[in-house]
């Protein structure tokens, strides 16, 4: 009775808070409204929906032995306490995506993005993560691609593989672009980010040779050095000669990231990738906690309106209307197909009991979604004029500070050159105009909260701490992703020529890594030379690819549910799938056929080609125009290809489902046979 009353109260408070943020139209609104709404939605989603899905739809069976118990080898299959698995799983799924997506989507106002993060998270992303984690646990930790092949057939399996490779390329390119934009003409950020590389190598040597496997102490030393690098960047910035050494244009920085990606992908993992990942994981957990604490302590005011005029598609950060682009842009914070790859990899091999799947799968994604909410708060607490000045490319608002300020003020978001100069000075940067990519504006937002909560005079330090924090795990994703792409490519090439499949044969390693790096390096380079900032092209493409991968994962889940005779529950994964299919198809349609050059790839290419032919382009732009034209057409082809892959998998899933419902033969259930949990425990005790 008391419990019922408590949950009724949570529901009422949640409804009140959501109603509050939805209808509020004053000057500002306190961030606590959003925080309370989020806490209530997540609590209700976890307590009721996830419990129902686990019990009824997945039929989680706590008496069934998990692969960690059955195949325990003390190495990758190890039954582990659920809180530990939760920590590992969250660290694996949480990347820069949920920080950047909401920052960009804030151009629509705080409301649309926040609502989609909450609704999409609780009904879509969390369900996807939990379901795939469960299905993979039942199948000895098989990957998404393998499950697609086993349960749907070779077509689904091939499409999943192709989708994964494509998303990897685009993801790395866009993340690389975010880092480049954060470092461009910022000696402080550049020197700090550069310093993270020798620090990681040092910790790598420490963990291998000096104190093997003592991750905790190695990481603490590394973290201390990283904090020192943030402060040291400030000294570099104030030194006239050193300053110039790190004051770099976008192009050399892009080449640096490309070269770095290649070297990191072919070096042994213990030297650079593994130690930096430990550092980034500790930083990530620490910063997320700190941000949550600061938001609750400071209760900042949100200055962005609930909804801006840019829902009509004229937004300066990326073109395109609220539907479908808010769903494409938020991506990782609400539903991320990438998580399905992690949920069907390492994590299932650690789960000690099927009942833990709910907390680990659903719970980790809920926390990730909460990170996205905090990123939204950090972006929207800035004055909207400042937010748009930081995030709008010169091609959109004008190349000079005066022009940019005039354009942004004319939209009804007043901002002055003095205000921006003062802010840049406070943050230790020479300028904050046109720092596209989301990282700088997020860093300004985070620095404002942190400094008001923990030390007013340290704005510049906090700003560069936030930049370093984002760069460190973007670089981890960059070389981990390149490595995965390399393995997939080696696997594919081995069908053409056997020796290419040997993952440690150096010629094969170099060729495959080179191809993957060339793939994302190309998009990164084009993004850097594009006067419109590149993000406006790459992020939607990434969003489409990520939602497409989620679509494939949900297809696998829905197909399996129907095959197992759970047709009446198939909407649990089927409804998010249908929504993603609509959203990605609509977005692709817009990106390809829209006549607005800020939205449609082809319209942009044609428009630029016409200007080039007429000779109206300035010389600098005319030089890169042919590349940009080619790239926009390539992007159109890529977007169509992605959506075709999704529809092929959907068709394949429907084919298998119809056959299953009719009682015709379908690929057999690939679950590992049921073994009672007690029999394993008894035999373990006997041994």
């Amino acid at each position, binding site marked *: 009775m008391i419990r019922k009353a408590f949950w009724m109260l949570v529901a009422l408070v949640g409804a009140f808070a959501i109603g509050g943020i939805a209808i509020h139209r004053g000057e500002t609104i306190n961030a606590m409204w959003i925080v309370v709404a989020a806490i209530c939605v997540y609590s209700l989603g976890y307590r009721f929906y996830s419990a129902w899905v686990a019990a009824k739809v997945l039929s989680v069976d706590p008496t069934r032995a998990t692969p960690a118990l059955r195949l325990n080898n003390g190495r990758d299959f190890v039954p582990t306490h659920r809180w530990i698995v939760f920590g590992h799983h969250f660290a694996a799924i949480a990347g820069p995506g949920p920080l950047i997506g909401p920052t960009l989507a804030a151009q629509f106002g705080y409301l649309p993005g926040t609502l989609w993060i909450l609704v999409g998270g609780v009904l879509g992303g969390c369900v996807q993560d939990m379901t795939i984690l469960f299905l993979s646990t039942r199948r000895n930790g098989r990957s998404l691609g393998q499950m697609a092949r086993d349960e749907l057939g070779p077509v689904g399996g091939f499409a999943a593989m192709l989708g994964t490779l494509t998303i990897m390329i685009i993801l790395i390119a866009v993340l690389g672009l975010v880092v480049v934009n954060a470092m461009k003409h910022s000696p402080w950020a550049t020197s700090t980010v550069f310093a993270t590389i020798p620090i990681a190598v040092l910790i790598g040597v420490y963990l291998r040779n000096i104190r093997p496997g003592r991750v905790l102490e190695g990481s603490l030393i590394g973290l201390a050095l990283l904090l020192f690098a943030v402060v040291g960047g400030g000294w570099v910035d104030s030194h006239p000669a050193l300053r110039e050494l790190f004051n770099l244009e976008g192009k050399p920085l892009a080449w640096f990231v490309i070269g770095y990606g290649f070297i990191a992908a072919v070096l042994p*993992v213990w030297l650079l990738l593994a130690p930096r990942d430990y550092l980034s994981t500790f930083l990530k957990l620490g910063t997320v906690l700190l941000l949550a604490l600061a938001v609750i302590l400071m209760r900042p005011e949100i200055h962005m309106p609930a909804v801006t005029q840019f829902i009509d598609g004229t937004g300066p950060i990326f073109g395109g209307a609220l539907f479908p682009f808010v769903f494409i842009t938020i991506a990782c914070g609400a539903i991320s197909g990438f998580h399905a790859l*992690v949920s069907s990899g390492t994590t299932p091999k650690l789960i000690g009991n099927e009942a833990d799947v709910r907390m680990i799968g659903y719970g980790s994604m809920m926390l990730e979604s909460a990170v996205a909410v905090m990123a939204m708060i950090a972006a929207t607490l800035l004055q909207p004029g400042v937010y748009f000045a930081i995030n709008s490319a010169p091609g959109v608002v004008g190349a000079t500070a005066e022009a940019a300020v005039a354009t942004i003020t004319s939209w009804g978001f007043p901002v002055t050159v003095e205000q921006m100069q003062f802010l840049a000075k406070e943050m230790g940067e020479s300028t904050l105009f046109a720092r596209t990519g989301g990282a700088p504006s997020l860093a300004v937002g985070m620095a404002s909260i942190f400094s008001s909560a923990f030390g007013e005079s340290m704005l510049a330090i906090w700003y560069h701490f936030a930049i370093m924090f984002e760069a460190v795990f973007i670089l981890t994703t960059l070389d981990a992703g390149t490595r995965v792409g390399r393995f997939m490519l080696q696997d594919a090439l081995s069908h053409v020529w056997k020796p290419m499949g040997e993952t440690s044969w150096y010629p094969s390693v170099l060729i495959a890594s080179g191809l993957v790096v060339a793939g994302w390096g190309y998009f990164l380079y084009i993004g850097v030379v594009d006067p419109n900032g590149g993000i406006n092209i790459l992020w939607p493409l990434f969003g489409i690819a990520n939602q497409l991968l989620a679509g494939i994962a949900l297809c696998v889940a829905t197909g399996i549910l129907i095959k197992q005779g759970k047709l009446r529950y198939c909407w649990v994964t089927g409804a998010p799938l249908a929504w993603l299919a609509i959203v990605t198809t609509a977005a692709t349609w817009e990106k390809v056929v829209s006549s607005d050059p800020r939205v449609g790839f082809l319209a942009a290419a044609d428009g630029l080609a016409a200007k080039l032919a007429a000779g109206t382009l300035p010389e600098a732009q005319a030089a890169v125009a042919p590349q940009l034209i080619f790239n926009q057409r390539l992007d159109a082809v890529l977007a169509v290809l992605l959506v075709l892959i999704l529809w092929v998998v959907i068709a394949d899933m429907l084919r298998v489902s119809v056959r299953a419902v009719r009682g015709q033969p379908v690929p057999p259930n690939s679950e590992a046979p049921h073994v009672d949990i007690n029999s394993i425990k008894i035999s373990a005790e006997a*041994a």
Partner: protein
Amino acid sequence: MSMQRLTLWAAAAWNMIRSLATDDAYDKYLAHHAHAHAGSPPMSRRAFYLQQQQCKWTGVSRCC
């Protein structure tokens, strides 16, 4: 809270942190090896660490 319970609680928290950082992975491996493959020599700490890293970074283990 009695001193004894506080110590127990602190020990549990410390074990949790060590587990999260995978500091205890080698101890777990040794324990497993002792009863599953008794007689054969286990890997050294360093060899185990390197093998763990190789295994971890062969699949998709980090997201966006």
